């Protein structure tokens, strides 16, 4: 027996149904011609996901899903789109019912919805950094000129004349400047002593400015250190660490005081300079033992200050003294120790 469905191409389904022996359903023999849906048919795919297709079309979709390389990814992407539309409140009443009564039955989809809800909120909060584009191939002046000359031979002749003029002009200029340079060297020698004196004055000035900058930086670090145990949202405690404090700065150590309601402690490690493409942070306890592996992290800008942000659940930080070892990761993946940030948990 042969059945024909809306055919785009022929594929061979099972030669015979197993259910004849085991389940008693009608046997299907022979080669069937089955519709394979167009992958771009988003509406049909959406109906399939909502369980709104006829059995025949559903089975045709399943053959496509089993055989096409991209089909699986297309279905996953369509699921994402459908969930996003549901969350945006864009499904019709009927679609919403189908979404609840069919689409969401599988646990996998429920998890996907839950994740999408969180991801959507997160994406809306986050500013979008620019997507790196494909770099345009670099074209030199000489390549451009060559291309122009190939297209317009007349430009070639004009360009050649211009180049000759430039070379000639450059030679003349070189000869005359040599003579002038002899005179100017004499003058320069006479002025050298004066310049040396001026340079010394400039060096003194730079040193004074440097001291002033160091003092400002220390003030900034102190300001970070003063912002201790700031509650961000009731369940998150944020602690700004200072890069200039040492273990011996006993009373000045920034202190986190998590409450039973605290679920996360967030540490901000300000950077004095941002010279590395990535950083890693290791937590060290009061006895100098490293707790857990290093976490690779990127620098973030917080209120115009470059910083590394790390979070820990309070249960992983019992009361005591700790420090973070901050290291920079170079482009060649080498790790270079930068500094330590000390803090206390009560």
């Amino acid at each position: 027996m042969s059945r024909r469905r809306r055919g785009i191409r022929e594929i061979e389904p099972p030669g015979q149904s197993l259910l004849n022996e085991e389940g008693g359903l009608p046997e299907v023999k022979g080669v069937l011609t089955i519709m394979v849906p167009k992958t771009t048919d988003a509406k049909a795919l959406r109906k399939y996901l909502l369980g709104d297709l006829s059995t025949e079309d559903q089975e045709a979709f399943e053959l496509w899903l089993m055989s096409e390389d991209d089909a699986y990814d297309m279905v996953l992407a369509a699921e994402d789109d459908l969930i996003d539309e549901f969350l945006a409140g864009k499904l019709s009443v009927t679609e919403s019912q189908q979404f609840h009564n069919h689409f969401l039955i599988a646990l996998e989809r429920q998890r996907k919805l839950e994740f999408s809800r969180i991801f959507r909120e997160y994406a809306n909060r986050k500013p979008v950094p620019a997507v790196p584009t494909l770099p345009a191939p670099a074209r030199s002046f000489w390549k451009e000129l060559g291309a122009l000359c190939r297209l317009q031979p007349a430009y070639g002749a004009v360009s050649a004349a211009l180049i000759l003029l430039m070379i000639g002009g450059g030679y003349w200029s070189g000869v005359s400047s040599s003579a002038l340079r002899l005179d100017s060297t004499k003058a320069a020698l006479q002025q050298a002593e004066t310049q040396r004196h001026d340079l010394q004055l400039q060096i003194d000035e730079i040193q004074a400015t440097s001291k002033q900058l160091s003092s400002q930086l220390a003030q900034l670090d102190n300001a970070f250190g003063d912002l201790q145990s700031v509650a961000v949202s009731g369940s998150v405690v944020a602690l700004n660490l200072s890069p200039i404090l040492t273990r011996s700065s006993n009373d000045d150590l920034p202190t986190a005081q998590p409450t039973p309601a605290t679920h996360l402690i967030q540490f901000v490690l300000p950077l004095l300079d941002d010279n590395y493409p990535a950083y890693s942070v290791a937590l060290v306890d009061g006895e100098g033992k490293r707790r857990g592996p290093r976490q690779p992290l990127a620098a973030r800008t917080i209120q115009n200050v470059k910083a590394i942000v790390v979070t820990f659940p309070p249960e992983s930080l019992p009361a005591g003294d700790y420090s973070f070892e901050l290291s920079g990761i170079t482009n060649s993946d080498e790790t270079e120790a930068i500094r330590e940030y000390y803090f206390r948990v009560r």
Partner: protein
Amino acid sequence: MGCIPAPWGVEIMSRRPKSSSPLGFHECGRYNGAQRKVAAPNGELRRFRSLSSTHAKPDPDEITQEQLNLLLDWLDPDREKAGIRYEQIRKRLIKIFVCRASNNPEELADKTINRVARKLPEIRATYVGDPAHYFAGVAANIMREAIRKDRIPAIGMPDSPSATEDREKDYSCLEKCMEKLDTEDRSLVLDYYRLEGQAKIDHRRQLAEQLGIGLNALRIRACRIRSDLQACMQKCRAEGAEFAK
């Protein structure tokens, strides 16, 4: 007698008692519902489910080692490629059962594979075409059976978001997972899923042009990053404090 040599190294990771040998085939026992990991020559582990030994009384939902070998040979004479094909077919079968609103898609996918494996000696000589199509046909029959047996009532997902404290953990996990992405993927996934309506469509078209890829390729790429993020977040939630270290 009757001990079945495994095609590659074999590891049982199942509901069997712990006292059993990790190399299950030496024991010739019946591993109902066992999930095997099979180490391919390149060291990669593959899973095969529901195997039984040859001399034990066959369970309708189990297959023997010979049947599994036959199935793998049918999928591809190269055992490594057959293993990859097996995984692809299983993954797609699970998706089919998910799309058919089954709440036990993995079980039905394994049942489908086992049924194909048992039927293979009869059909192999005459069957023409992609083996995957045969699996799809059998899956449709299995689904009909399941519907007749026990139609599972629809269970709607509660719409209300999870508790605030869980939300904070979720955001923290998501933040960590985002940080694990490379800069390009992070930018792309945030950029792709913003805006609404026509503005979103126009923006995605612009983004595809900017990246020098087609719209469909962009859609699949964004979807894969999102899937990776979801997997990372689930792992983060499950591991809790350990993940943060």
